[in-house]
């Protein structure tokens, strides 16, 4: 194998250095062209990272608030379930519509309040008469289950 002599490298070293200088010059020109844009992108990355940290913190806070709200909501009336004891489905549907409107104020009320007010609810239901298709109906609250889903079992009697 032929080994190149040292003199050959010594002769060409200035061309190699010229080549390296050319690389450095090219890189400098490239740096001057794209440097500003790269800087701007780095700045944007930093800002986005900062925003990301803020959003993560906000998310944690929202999660905490959501959990506390769920905890609070567990102790209020969320929905009212009416179980009307009547054979006529049309009457049942009409009565449900009217009763839901009348009992709507109970939604969102604390369970303690509903427990204390249970007699009032019974009286309120009993005192009212509803007219459907020219027929009058009176109601009697038989069972009241107080929970986030308020269940009311109501007997329906037609007034004659």
């Amino acid at each position, binding site marked *: 194998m032929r080994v190149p002599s040292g003199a050959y490298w010594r002769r060409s070293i200035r061309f190699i250095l010229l080549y390296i200088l050319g690389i*450095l010059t090219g*890189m*400098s020109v*490239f*740096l*001057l062209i*794209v*440097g*500003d844009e*790269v*800087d701007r992108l*780095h*700045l944007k990355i930093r800002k986005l990272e900062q925003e990301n940290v803020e959003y993560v913190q906000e998310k944690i806070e929202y999660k905490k608030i959501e959990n506390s709200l769920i905890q609070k909501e567990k102790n209020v009336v969320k929905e009212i379930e009416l179980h009307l004891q009547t054979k006529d489905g049309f009457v049942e549907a009409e009565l449900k519509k009217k009763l839901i409107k009348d009992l709507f104020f109970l939604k969102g009320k604390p369970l303690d309040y509903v427990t204390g007010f249970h007699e009032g609810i019974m009286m309120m239901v009993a005192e009212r008469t509803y007219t459907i298709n020219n027929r009058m109906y009176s109601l009697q609250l038989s069972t009241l289950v107080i929970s986030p889903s308020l269940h009311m079992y109501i007997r329906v009697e037609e007034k004659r």
Partner: protein
Amino acid sequence: MSKMLLGQLAKDMSIYFFVAFGIVLGGSILGGIAALLTRQPPFHTMYELAFKLKIWGMVGALGGTFDSFMQIERIFQEGDMSPVIKQIIFIVSAFIGADTGTRLIHWLVHGDSI
């Protein structure tokens, strides 16, 4: 004779000026290239390097760390003032070179503060 001395002084001054200028300019640009290759903000790095290299540009141009100042001290002791003034002129020249380099880099990076 004094004309020759002034000419020599001007030549020395220009060498000190350009050496300091080159240290700041070259150091900042090559530092910027390194920053670009290592995924750092290049212009920001150049801006900071220009500041940091200002004093080193001056020291490098004067040939060592505190040689010039040691020389001034020695000359003061001998009582001859003209070399002291010469050294001060070189220091000022190197400072102007380094400062020009720094300002040039700042202008290049931000397009202002020149």
